[in-house]
C-alpha cells in the first residue's frame, strides 16, 4: 500500500495502549503482503518475519525493527448524571483536551466531545487555569439511562482527528506517535522485496509503549534478535521551542546516539545513510530515550540497539505534524542498511557465533 494511504488508515484507527486490536488487524493485513510469517505474541505485539536469503551453511542472523502501534487515550472512570468522567492512558497534556472530539468505545462506538464550560460563565481567574482532570467530562449526548446501557467503567476512549494533508509534503493527525514508525517499517519491507538480504528481518509493531515500553520488552525476548532498531518520533522544530531540543522536520532521519545506543550499530547506520546519500541528523540522547529502544537494549543478555527518530511537531496532540519525505527516507535507509548486513557486520558488533542453517 502507498505509505500515505497506509498512514491515514492506521492513524485514523483506534488502538489505545492495551487495546490495540483494531489497529493490529490493519497492520497484520499490510505486513502479511511482504512477510513470510506473521504472528501475535502474548502481549499483543504483531511480529512479521521476512526471511533472509542465504546460502546453506551461512550463520543465521536476525535484526528486529520495532515501532509501537499503541496510542495515548482515555478510559472511563465513572458515569455521572449523563456524563462520563475519565482518566488518561499514557502521558497527556491537559491543556489540549478542551473542545476535543472523541470516540467512546462502549457497547457500540459513541461519538462524543470533551465539554468545556462556556467562557461567558467563567470568572477571570478560572480562565487563567488549566482545567484539571477531575473537572473534565465527556458528553456523548445520551440520557442517563441510555448511557448506563451503553457505557461502563473501563471503556476506552480514543481521541478523534481525521488525517490532514498540509502544504510542503507535511501531514497532520493523531497517533503519528508512533504509527508513522509502523509505516516506515512497512516501507522498509516493501523496499526489501526488491533487494537481497541475508539477515532475517523481524518487523514488529509493539504494544503498550505509552504506558512503560512494555511490548518491546517481551517481543524482543521472544525474538532474541542479534540487533535491534527502534523507531520512534522526536520533537520537531517549532516556534517557541529552543533549537537545541529539536530536530528538523524534513531534515531526514534523526539517528540517536548515547547510552541507549550501541556505538557500532550507530556507526553502521550513519555510514549507510552517507553511502546512499540519504539526509540524516545526529540526535544526541544523554539519558533514557523513552522509547522501545530503552527496553530492547536490556533484554536477555543485552541486545545491540539503535534508535531512529522521525522529526514530529506537537507530540501527544491530535495534530502531530511530520514530513512524508522523512518517512520515505527512513524506510529506504532501513532497507539499504539491512541489505548491507553481513557476517562482518556481526563481528563488528561483537556478536557471539550464530547457529547455521542446515
Amino acid at each position, binding site marked *: 500500500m502507498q505509505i500515505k494511504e497506509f498512514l491515514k488508515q492506521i492513524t485514523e484507527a483506534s488502538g489505545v495502549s492495551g*487495546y490495540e486490536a483494531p489497529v493490529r488487524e490493519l497492520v497484520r493485513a499490510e505486513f502479511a503482503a511482504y512477510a513470510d510469517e506473521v*504472528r501475535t*505474541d*502474548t*502481549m*499483543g505485539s504483531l511480529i512479521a518475519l521476512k526471511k533472509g536469503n542465504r546460502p546453506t551453511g551461512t550463520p543465521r542472523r536476525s535484526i528486529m525493527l520495532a515501532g509501537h502501534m499503541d496510542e495515548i487515550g482515555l*478510559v472511563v*472512570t*465513572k458515569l455521572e*448524571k449523563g*456524563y462520563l468522567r475519565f*482518566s488518561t*492512558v499514557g*502521558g497527556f497534556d491537559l*491543556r*489540549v483536551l478542551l*473542545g*476535543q*472530539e472523541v470516540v467512546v468505545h462502549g457497547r457500540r462506538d459513541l*461519538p*462524543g466531545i470533551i465539554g*468545556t464550560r*462556556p467562557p*461567558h460563565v467563567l470568572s477571570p481567574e478560572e*480562565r*487563567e*487555569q*488549566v482545567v484539571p*482532570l477531575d473537572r473534565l*467530562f465527556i458528553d*456523548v*449526548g*445520551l*440520557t442517563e439511562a*441510555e448511557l448506563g446501557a451503553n457505557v461502563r*467503567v*473501563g471503556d476506552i476512549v480514543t481521541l478523534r482527528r*481525521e488525517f*490532514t494533508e*498540509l*502544504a*510542503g*509534503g*507535511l501531514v*497532520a493527525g493523531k497517533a503519528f506517535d508512533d504509527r508513522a514508525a509502523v509505516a516506515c517499517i512497512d516501507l522498509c519491507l516493501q523496499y526489501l522485496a526488491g533487494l537481497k538480504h541475508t539477515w532475517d528481518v523481524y518487523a514488529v509493531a509493539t504494544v503498550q509503549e505509552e*504506558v512503560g515500553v*512494555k511490548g518491546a*520488552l*517481551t517481543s524482543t525476548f521472544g525474538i532474541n534478535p542479534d540487533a535491534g532498531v527502534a523507531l520512534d518520533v522526536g*520533537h520537531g522544530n*517549532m516556534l*517557541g*521551542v529552543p533549537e537545541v*531540543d529539536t530536530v528538523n522536520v524534513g531534515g531526514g532521519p534523526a539517528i540517536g546516539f548515547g547510552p541507549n545506543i550501541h556505538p557500532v550499530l550507530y556507526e553502521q547506520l550513519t555510514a549507510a545513510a552517507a553511502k546512499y546519500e540519504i539526509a540524516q541528523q545526529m540526535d544526541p540522547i544523554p539519558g533514557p530515550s523513552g522509547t522501545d529502544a530503552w527496553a530492547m537494549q536490556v533484554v536477555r543478555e543485552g541486545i545491540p540497539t539503535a534508535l531512529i527518530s522521525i522529526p514530529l511537531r*506537537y*507530540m*501527544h496532540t*491530535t*495534530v502531530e*505534524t511530520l514530513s512524508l519525505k522523512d518517512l520515505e527516507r527512513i524506510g529506504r535507509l532501513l532497507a539499504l542498511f539491512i541489505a548491507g548486513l553481513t557476517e562482518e557486520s556481526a563481528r563488528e558488533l561483537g556478536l557471539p557465533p550464530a547457529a547455521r542453517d542446515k
Partner: protein
Amino acid sequence: MLLKELSEAVGVSGGEGAVRQLVLDAIKANIDEHRVDALGNLITLKKGRGGQKRKVMVAAHMDEIGLMIVRIEKEGSLRFRPVGGIDDRVLLAKKVLIGDKKVPGVIGSKPVHLLDPRQRQQVVKVEDMSIDIGASSQEEAGKLVKVGDYASFDVPYRDLGGELRAVTGKAFDDRAGCAVLIELLKGSYPFDLYAVFTTQEEVGLRGARVAAYSVAPDAAFVLEGTICDDMPKQKDVSPTTVVGQGPAITLMDRSVISDQRLVDLLVRTAEANKIPYQFKQPGIGATDAGAIHLSREGVPSVVVAVPSRYIHSPVCLLSLNDLENTVQLMQRSLAGLDKVDLSR
C-alpha cells in the same frame, strides 16, 4: 433541516458571505423580497396573508467566532488573533481552515514532554500560539494565505443518535438559530414577517443594530444557540471501590492493563452465578500483576480484589461477604478457565 450544511459553512464575523448564500438559496422560494444591506445583513420579507399591519422581525445571526491571521512569520507559521470571544484554552491542538481557499492548518502546541510542571498548569495565551500550514518560509506561506484571512475551526457535523437525538458540530451559535428561522419561513403568517439573518453579532451585535433600524419592526424575536452549563461541577469523588458490592476486578491500574479475556471470564462467571462484582476505578494503584505480566514473553494477567477501607493504615475494614464472594468468583472462574482461548 439544514443544520449540517449551516454548521459546516464558514462565516466568521465580517466574512459571512458563504453562509448568506447558503441561507438565501434555502429560503428563496419562501420569501417575497430580500436585500443585503451595507453590513451584509440578509433582510427578507415574507408578506402577511391576514391583513395585519404589524411588522415582525425574527433574527438569527450568521456569523461565528473564529480567528484572523495577523502576521506570517519568517519560518512560515501564522500568528493569529481571535475574532469574537474565544477561551484561549480551547485553541491548542485544533485543526483550522484558512481563507476562501480553506487552506488546512493546525494550531501547534509545545509538547508536554518539554514543559516544566509549572508550564503544564499555565494557560497559553493566544499571542503565543501559531498556526502551522506546512509552509517552511514566509514566501511559501504567502502563496496560500494572506494577512487578514479569516480562519475557522474544522469540525464535521455528527449525529450521536439516542433518545436526545444529540448532534455535534461547530458554530451552533448561531447556525441553530438560522436553521430554525429557515424552517419558520416555510409557514405562512398573518403579519409581514421580516426574517433577518444578521452579521457581526459576535463582535458587538453590529449587524442587528442597523437591520433593526431599517426594518423598524413592531416586534422582534431573536433565535439563538445559547449557553448551557449543565455539566456536573463537583470534583470526582469516586470511591475507587465500595465495601459490600463484591469482588473488585481491575481493568487497568498504574502497573498493568488486565488481559481482557480474563476480565471477560470473571464477568461471565459472576453474572452466570449471580455473584456481585464491581470494577475498580481505572488508573489507581499498582500490584504484583505489574511485574508478572511482563515476565519473559509476557503473561496474561488480571487482578481481583476484596475492597478494604483504610489500607496502609494501622487498622483496615472489609466485608466478609465480599471476601466470600471473591472466593466464589475465583473458584468458579478458575473452573471455567479451560474454555478461555489464551492464544493470539
